[in-house]
Structure formats: structure tokens, C-alpha cells
């Protein structure tokens, strides 16, 4: 589904990613872990098409297509979804209008008829239940006045509405209390299928108790320095990142 080869990315001349290689197949869950500043969020944002970054080398292929030349909206319509680390508040844009526009853009791309207001509200009700999204929130402007946890729920709610093929969860667990974490994880698990894949970017092992990964990768200074199964996350939780840093010849 997604193939990343030797990806090098810099921002304002500073190299952030330094030769990433990653293969993701349908049905898989990949966790990307690593200390602060290792490049995890950069990777997530580059995949979603944020334009602040410069790709200096390498290639990204998604469903057989070159992803790098694609506009963010085209990536979204083709099934890539980024759950933002810091979802943006957009006063004056009502949630319902925003969501309906997004859903209908996806439908248009697939050659389906747009949903009427009534049909959309029905779909919305269904998906809201999945992440226990409050109606009071969907009556507001996008993310306006949402708490940290509500913003993250809202991301997963959007994911449920847009039914992506490749979901990238960028530190979706940060700022969540344990109940919210469970709800969000439940939502993500409910949306899992053999046809879609998920990348979970996180600092902590905690989320991975709920969203169990098939592969765990450790990112360090812009490179994947270790890949293993889910047990790696537990090991990291226990020992921290220092031993990996040492293994890679870093001073700790």
C-alpha cells in the first residue's frame, strides 16, 4: 500500500529525515516510536502533504502512485488521513458544513452522489456514537473551544466519516485521559479492516495496549534504527530510549 524509500526531508535547510525506508501492507498496524525531535511528526506530515517541508531525496509510492507530486486534498480523497497532533481551531466554519463538504468531496471523487443534508445527518449520528462525540460539539465551529481530548476525538470522528485506507495517527494519545484514550482506541479498532492500514505515531507504549501494532519502528535522528514486533514497545517502556541511542553510538 505504502512504500517509502530512502526518504530525506529538510525544513529551512535543516535535515529532519535522513533516509527512511518503510513498507506498509493492507491490514497492518505500524507503530512509530522515538524520542522528541526524532522526526516522527515530520514523517506524518510529509505523508499528508504539508508543504513546509522539502523532500531532498527518496520516493514515496502509495497504491502504486507517486505520492510526492499529489496535492493534500488528492491524497485525502485517495484514502490518506492524518489525525493531527494539534488540530486547528477554525472559528466561523461550522462543524457540520465542514464535515459535509469533506464527505461529499470524497463521494464526488468516487463518482457517488453527494449526500443530502438529511442523509448526512443520519451518517453523522452513526459515527458520532462510535467515538461518543457530543452533539453540542458538532454544533460548534471546527474545534472551537474544544478541550485537548475533544479535539482528538474529533479527529477520529472525522476518520470514521471519511473511511480512509491509510490512517496516520500523529500522537493521538497525547493530552488524553485514560477514558478518552480507551474511547479513541475503540474507535480506531472498530474502523480496522483487512483492506486498510494504520500508522500510529506515539511516544508512549500506553496507546499500544489498546491499538495493538503488528510492527514497531524506532525513529532516531531521522532514521529508523530498529524494527520489531509489538514486544519492542514494551521493552522501550521498560528501558527508555537510552539503550537504543547507545546502540547507535550516541552519547547519552
Amino acid at each position: 500500500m505504502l512504500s517509502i524509500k530512502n526518504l530525506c526531508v529538510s525544513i529551512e535547510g535543516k535535515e529532519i529525515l535522513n533516509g527512511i525506508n518503510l513498507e506498509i501492507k493492507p491490514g497492518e498496524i505500524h507503530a512509530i516510536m522515538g524520542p522528541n525531535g526524532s522526526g516522527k511528526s515530520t514523517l506524518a506530515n510529509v505523508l499528508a502533504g504539508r508543504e513546509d517541508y522539502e523532500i531532498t531525496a527518496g520516493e514515496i509510492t502509495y497504491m502504486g502512485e507517486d505520492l510526492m507530486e499529489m496535492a493534500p486534498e488528492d491524497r485525502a480523497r485517495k484514502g490518506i488521513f492524518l489525525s493531527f497532533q494539534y488540530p486547528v481551531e477554525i472559528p466561523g466554519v461550522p462543524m457540520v458544513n465542514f464535515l459535509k463538504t469533506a464527505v461529499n468531496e470524497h463521494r464526488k471523487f468516487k463518482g457517488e452522489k453527494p449526500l443530502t443534508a438529511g442523509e448526512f445527518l443520519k451518517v453523522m449520528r452513526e459515527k458520532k456514537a462510535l467515538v461518543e462525540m457530543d452533539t453540542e460539539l458538532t454544533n460548534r465551529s471546527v474545534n472551537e473551544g474544544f478541550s485537548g481530548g475533544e479535539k482528538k476525538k474529533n479527529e477520529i470522528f472525522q476518520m470514521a466519516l471519511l473511511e480512509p485506507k491509510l490512517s496516520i495517527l500523529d500522537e493521538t494519545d497525547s493530552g488524553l485521559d485514560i477514558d478518552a484514550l480507551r474511547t479513541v482506541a475503540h474507535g480506531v479498532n472498530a474502523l480496522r479492516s483487512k483492506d486498510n492500514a494504520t500508522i500510529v505515531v506515539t511516544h508512549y507504549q500506553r496507546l499500544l495496549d489498546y491499538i495493538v501494532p503488528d510492527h514497531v519502528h524506532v525513529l532516531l535522528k531521522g532514521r529508523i534504527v530498529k524494527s520489531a514486533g509489538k514486544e519492542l514497545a514494551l521493552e522501550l517502556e521498560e528501558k527508555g530510549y537510552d539503550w537504543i541511542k547507545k546502540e547507535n553510538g550516541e552519547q547519552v
Partner: protein
Amino acid sequence: MNAVTENNDLSLRLTEQYNTLRDSLKESGAPVLNIHRQKAFRDFVAQGIPTRKVENYKYTNLQPAFAKEFDFPVRKSANDFQLEEKFKCDVPQINTHVVTMRNGWFYAEANEAVQLPEGVILDSFENVARTRPDLVEKFYGKLADTSADAMVALNTAFAQDGYFLYVPKNVAVEQPLQIINLLQAPKDTYVTQRNLIVVEEGAEVKLILCDHTLNLQNYFFNNATEAFIGSNASLDYYTVQNQHNKAVSINSVFVHQEQDSHLTSNTVSLHGGLIRNNLRVELDGQNCEANMFGLSFLDRKQHVDNFTQIIHGQPHCESNQLYKNVLDDESTGAFSGRIHVKRDAQKTNAFQRNNNLLLTDKAQMQTKPQLIIEADDVKCSHGATIGQIDEEALFYLRSRGIEEKQARLIMMNAFSYEVVQTIKVEPLRDRINELIERRLSGDVGRCHECAYQCDC
């Protein structure tokens, strides 16, 4: 030729024009208006055509607008136009009394279905000034100071007709009244319109004004309105400006409020070549509230200048100003807002905000808040921002599959939302939302079927 001599030449031309027309004006004008002409014109000559050198016109130079040769009609033309066919200012679901003005003259278009409440007068200003000078005398020229603004002076010198609205004591006009100001002449035309609004104690009225151009002549529209709001009375005053790029529009509104009265003014400038909105509100009684809102959309070389003055003369009053501009291409905008809190006006709340969205590097916005506070127990604030569309928000929308162009539209609509939502007449609000959508998506925001092209 330097600017000063050019200005003198243009002023001279206007003087000749005035001298030529003076007798006709006197002959056809109502006596209560005539007595003000001479002084008004002298005041105009003393001030000259406003250029950037005049402090109050720092951001709007009217000299180029006056360089054109205009026709100055002093007689009302026959009602020979088929309005039904040419024009429908269709705000759906507003079943209202509609009045049409053409080139500053009042043409009654009585809507049989809607009767005005007893005692309410909505008529030709000229007619009322002639037949009921007692209603006019007391008010006319009391707020519009000819020595303070050259354009007001010129308006007063040439004033003949406009609309007159009178709402007697304790009468509430339920349905909003709609006044459509049309410009439609065979030649390039300078149009004077002069209006008077009197809302007596305890009365309530809502006015919707629509400014339109119906053909492609050059127009100079000098429109001035004096409004008196009695104690415990309320006036809602909505203006939608939708003229073509060859129209210059000076829209001066002067409001006087007595105690416990309420004003909401909302000016949406959808389209126009050069627009200058003067709004001066005097709070002359306790517990008054004045809300002044404005929203402008500019592109190409359009220019919109909102110039507001609010005078807090008495204690316990509140004023709110919110003006927003969306500027595209090489358009230029200005906002000057003066809040004057006089010494007696303790416990004043006066707020002002001006937010601007620049869509290109070439668009320009000037903003100038001015606070003069002579009382010591007041709450006043002002703020201004000039910025671009939030790139983070744009990426967020795009990352959900919304095309960039559409995402920008959504952001512009969001920016406007705060002003639009203050419109309390729901069908008008819906209509304006729709017009804004069309305006922003590149379709001209016209609210009728006329076929003016805006490539001029």
C-alpha cells in the same frame, strides 16, 4: 499641473456648475432646503474637493473622481422606466414595503399587500419638505455639518430629493422597509440624494437599503442621511452596496440618539468602484446602545473607506464597532474609527475592532483607530489586525479532501461570518450569505437580473 491648481480648477468647475444651476435649484427645490444652499456651497468652496491632505480623507482622494464631466440633473425625470422588468431586488421572503429611488429621486412603488402602520410616513423628501416643512425644519441640517465635510456641504448645496421616513411615537413597524437606490441615467451623472429619518420616542423601525447601478455610465453618488432616534426608540439600518466599478459612492449617515435608544447599523459593501462610508453617531442621552458593523469585499482596483465617529456625550452608554474587509488583487481599503468619550460620559463602554484579510501582496489596507477619552471611569478598547488566510487552517481543510480554492472560500466565509450573523432580519441574512458566496467564488454578487458587466 500640480495637485493644488488641479483641485482649484475642479472646484471652479463645480462652482460654475452650481452657479448655472442655482436658480433652477431654488425654483424646483423646497424652501426649507433652499435656505441652506448658499452657506453649504460656500463651505464646500472653503474646503475644496477632499484629497489626502485633508485629515479626514487621508486614505481617499476624491480628486480623480471629480475630473470626469458629469451631468447634474436638477429635475425629476418622468417615471418612464419599467422597473418590474429591469430590476428585482429579490430578497426572498421579505414581504415588505419597497420604495425605489432613481438618481436620487423618490418614486413611489407602493406594495399594496403591505400597509404602513397609521401615522408612518415614507415619502419623497422633496414632497414632505414642501407640504410639511414643520416636520423637516426642526431636523434638516442639524447633524450634517457642512463646515466639517466638503462632501456633505456639496450634498446640501444640491439637495432636492431623497426619502423621508417618519415613525411616530410608540409605533413599531414590524416588517422591515426596503429602499432601493438605483443609478440609471443616459449620461455620466453626478447624483445627489438627501434623506431624513425621524423615529420618535418608543418607536421601532428596520430599514434595508440597497445601492445599485443599472447601466455602465460613470456615476458619482453623493448620498447623505440624517437620522434622529428618540428616547427608547430603535433603528436598524442595513445597507447593501452593489455598484459597478465606474461608480463612486459617498454615503454619509449622521445619527442622533436620545436616552435608552438603540441603533444597529450594518453596511455590507459587496461591490463598487470607490466607496466612502461616513457614519457619525452621537449618543446624547443615557443608556444608549449603538452597534456599528461593516463588511467589505474588494477586488481589482476597488477602494472602500469606512470612516466612523462615535460621540459618547452622556453616561452609561455602550457602543460596539466591528468592521471587516476582504481585499483581493490591487484593491485598497481604509478604516478610521474615532471614539470620543466626553467628560460627562462616565461608565461608558466603547469597543472597536477592525479585522482585515489580504488575499494578495498588492492589496493594501490602512487602519486608524482614534480614541479621545475625557471621562475617567470608562471601558474602551480598540484593536486592528491585517493578515492573510491562516495556512494551518487551510492545510487542515485540504487534508480532509477539500480543494484549495474551496478551502479558501470557506476561510473567507468564516472571516465574514462574525459580521453577517449580526443581521437580525433572517431572510436578509440568508440572502447576504448567498451573495457573499457568489461574490467570493468570482461570480458577481448581484442580487437581481441586471446584466452589468464588471470589467469596466
